[in-house]
């Protein structure tokens, strides 16, 4: 138990330094911080509580909080939009949540050098809206685009469906400002995209899940808004037919922004001819002439692979569904979960066959209708899907086994457990399927060097060391 007297002292101190309005401590106010969108056993929604929540607005305020926590070795949980899927934000050891949502300013926009510097709590959508005024774009679009913050996205190594042309957030980071576990402020280097001087420090904090420090400022690469945009979409007999077109496209030199291949349950509502249950699309951006040529090229591929071209209007509607369907996706009585595994393309069929017919089936885990097979088309090789978590305590155990089985399958095929949702609590205990003990030890060494007292988001991402390992 936390020492109540100490907690009261820290609360008073932080209220004094930050102001009353920026410190939350009453139980009612702490409720939203009990968990993120992580799947936990039924009835455990409110199992873990933070002790305090702070809402800093500046780097100096973050520093003050970290210093106070470091002094007493109190756990710190940096928070962005709060939409994480894997439990990164569950306060399993209590402590202080550093909620960055009020750090939502744009600090600098450089048109000639094509970058934007922002505070971490600004959402991806807000960044795009702001940049549009300068004729620029960050080009980061994930399902949680309306909620996810820059800090959270970097810390999760989040995905972007525009990755094929513009990369993910991991490819965008030029420079970071981070408050380290001892309260010192790290500037990772100049605001440049390329340098051959020193370790690539910004990379350390990408996907670090808040275990190494609190990101307080990020400089990200941006691009001019394209002159033209288009979406070319084809309806296919099924997912596998759509996948063939996707594979063929990936083998050409066409530069598409991103694309997907997936199953479509209610195809009629989206203009699909009867019996066409597969979709493949690519988004294209560039100069007008470039996009016109790419559209013609893609239409040809779709025709040649047996696809039925969707009207421009239907294509745009289906394209828009991406960020819309994410919102409210888990507000349904059946508890489901999703996965974002990365699988080599040559193993995709084997992966899905074994996953649904063996790994999931033997645990009684069934796919959510229409979300059985889903491929993000492009170099990231993201293969996703959704499944129902069986009911009851036994069902929960079976789900855990199925999740592990899935991780075993993905890694045995040379892939990765989680392509964009991070590790958090969900995948922590089988991360050794993906990384050797040597690799995990390197991670532990980095963690120890930067956070010797283990106060930064403790218990997340890195699994405990195996006892017999030397």
């Amino acid at each position, binding site marked *: *138990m936390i020492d109540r007297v100490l907690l009261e002292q820290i609360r008073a101190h932080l209220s004094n330094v930050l102001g009353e309005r920026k410190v939350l401590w009453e139980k009612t106010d702490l409720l939203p911080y009990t968990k993120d969108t992580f799947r936990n056993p039924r009835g455990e929604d409110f199992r873990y509580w933070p*002790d305090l929540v702070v809402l800093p607005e500046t780097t100096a305020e973050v520093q003050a909080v970290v210093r106070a926590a470091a002094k007493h070795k109190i756990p710190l949980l940096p928070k962005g939009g*709060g939409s994480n899927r894997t439990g990164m934000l569950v306060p399993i050891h209590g402590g202080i949540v550093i909620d960055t949502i009020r750090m939502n300013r744009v600090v600098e926009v450089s048109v000639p050098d094509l970058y934007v510097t922002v505070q971490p709590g600004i959402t991806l959508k807000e960044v795009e809206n702001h940049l549009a005024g300068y004729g620029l774009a960050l080009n980061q679009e994930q399902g949680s685009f309306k909620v996810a913050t820059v800090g959270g996205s970097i810390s999760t190594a989040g995905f972007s469906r525009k990755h094929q042309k513009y990369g993910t957030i991991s490819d965008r980071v030029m420079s970071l400002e981070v408050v380290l576990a001892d309260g010192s402020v790290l500037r990772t280097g100049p605001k440049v995209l390329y340098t051959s001087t020193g370790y690539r420090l910004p990379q350390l904090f990408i996907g670090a899940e808040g275990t190494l420090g609190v990101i307080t400022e990020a400089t990200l690469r941006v691009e001019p808004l394209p002159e033209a945009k288009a979406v070319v979409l084809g309806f296919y007999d099924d997912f596998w037919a759509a996948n063939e077109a996707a594979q063929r496209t990936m083998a050409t030199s066409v530069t598409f922004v991103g694309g997907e291949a997936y199953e479509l349950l209610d195809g009629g509502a989206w203009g699909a001819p009867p019996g066409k249950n597969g979709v493949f699309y690519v988004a294209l951006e560039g100069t007008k002439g470039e996009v016109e040529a790419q559209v013609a090229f893609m239409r040809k591929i779709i025709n040649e692979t047996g696809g039925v071209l969707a009207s421009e209007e239907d294509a745009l509607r289906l394209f828009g569904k991406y960020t819309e369907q994410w919102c409210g996706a*888990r*507000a349904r009585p059946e*508890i489901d979960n999703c996965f974002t595994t990365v699988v080599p393309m040559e193993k995709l069929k084997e992966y899905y066959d074994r996953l649904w017919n063996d790994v999931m089936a033997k645990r009684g885990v069934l796919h959510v209708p229409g979300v059985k097979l889903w491929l993000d088309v492009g170099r990231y090789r993201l293969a996703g899907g959704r499944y129902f978590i069986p009911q009851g305590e036994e069902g929960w155990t079976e789900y855990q086994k199925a999740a592990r089985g899935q991780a075993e399958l993905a890694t045995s095929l040379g892939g990765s457990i989680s392509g964009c949702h991070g590790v958090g609590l969900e995948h922590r205990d089988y991360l050794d399927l993906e990384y050797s003990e040597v690799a995990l030890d390197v991670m532990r060494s980095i963690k120890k060097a930067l956070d010797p007292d283990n106060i930064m988001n403790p218990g997340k991402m890195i699994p405990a060391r195996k006892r017999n390992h030397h």
Partner: protein
Amino acid sequence: MLAASWGSGIMNPACSARLGNMDSELDAAIKTSEMCSLCRCGCCKDECPMYAEMLEESISPKGRNVLFRALSQGLVCPDSRAVRIAYSCLLCKRDEISCSAGLKNAQATEAFRQYLVDHGIPMLPGHDVLVKSLENYRNPWQESKAARKRWAKEFQDRRVVPGKTKTLFYVGCTYALDRSLQESPRALARAMELFGEDFGMLLEQETCCGSTAKRMGHKRLFEKLREENEKSLREARVKTIVTACSGCFKTLKQDYPELDKEVQILHSTEYLASRIKDHRQELAPVKMKVTYHDPCHLGRYMKIYEAPREILRSIPGLKLVEMSSSRELSRCCGGGGGVKTAYPEISLAIAKTRLKEAEATGADALITACPFCVQSLRAAAEATGSKMEVLSLEVLVWRSLSQGGGQRN
């Protein structure tokens, strides 16, 4: 390592306010809170004007749902912090557009407030005044019943004759009693006269529709007001009720379960749009660039987006430009849900944001169709020294009519 000091979700023995008897609205709210707690995506925060202003996780539909769920499980008490969260909502429904699960968050928030009221949780300063006024004067603005006919001196002969008069102009408390807004009911009444409408009013006998009480969670008071009002509306035995207040319109149509089946209820924008079709030649040019603000109660609640725009497009010389958010995505003016009374500064800040959006269009005037929106947006224009004229649609229509057909009349 420190452990969480609150333990693991054990019911706080000091808090005995578990949910007791539930009615269907509370039941629905609990289901909403359960579904939302399972999801917690937080998309409702995006474009939520209250959240944007306060930047707190709790001040969002998600925050309220999670709180109501914890409350219904007896995990937290309905303390002053809970009251603050429950009432920090404009009930604007913008979030519901984004929620693919279709959660009815505004309805759940009303039920949450009702739960607090039913448990005798002390009201917020300002809300108690509104409630007392409703109890004593049958309007939220502490005005006598007689004051309701003050604006209508030139229409004293327009008293409804039960069974004879065809159309009732239901003015509503705010248009009838706020002196700064009375040009609006006057404009509508004059237009109705010009159209030769056989209409009447209840004048001082008109009673509040109960919207304010309902939005603030005072369900019993609402039911009382509804009964009284419904009785007087029925006794008028008219075919059509026209109201210019979006709040009254929503309430009469959605919260009075039977009335809509018996009598046609029209918002003034629907009424004017239909009449203007036959009186186009009487509309004189109004050389102005305007933008239109969709009131939440008219737009997202009642889905009336086209009628006001149709009217604006039919006025010669008038140019309509849209704001960056409009129709179902329209941003709230900050005047809804009791926020303006309890948290006037936040309400004003939200109104200023909306006004800025209007200014960015380069329009000369901001037109809307709800007294609360006119009040809020005008206050924002005054506070910022803006040149933007804030007008109700009725006033604008009368400007055009009075130069055209009205002048000849």
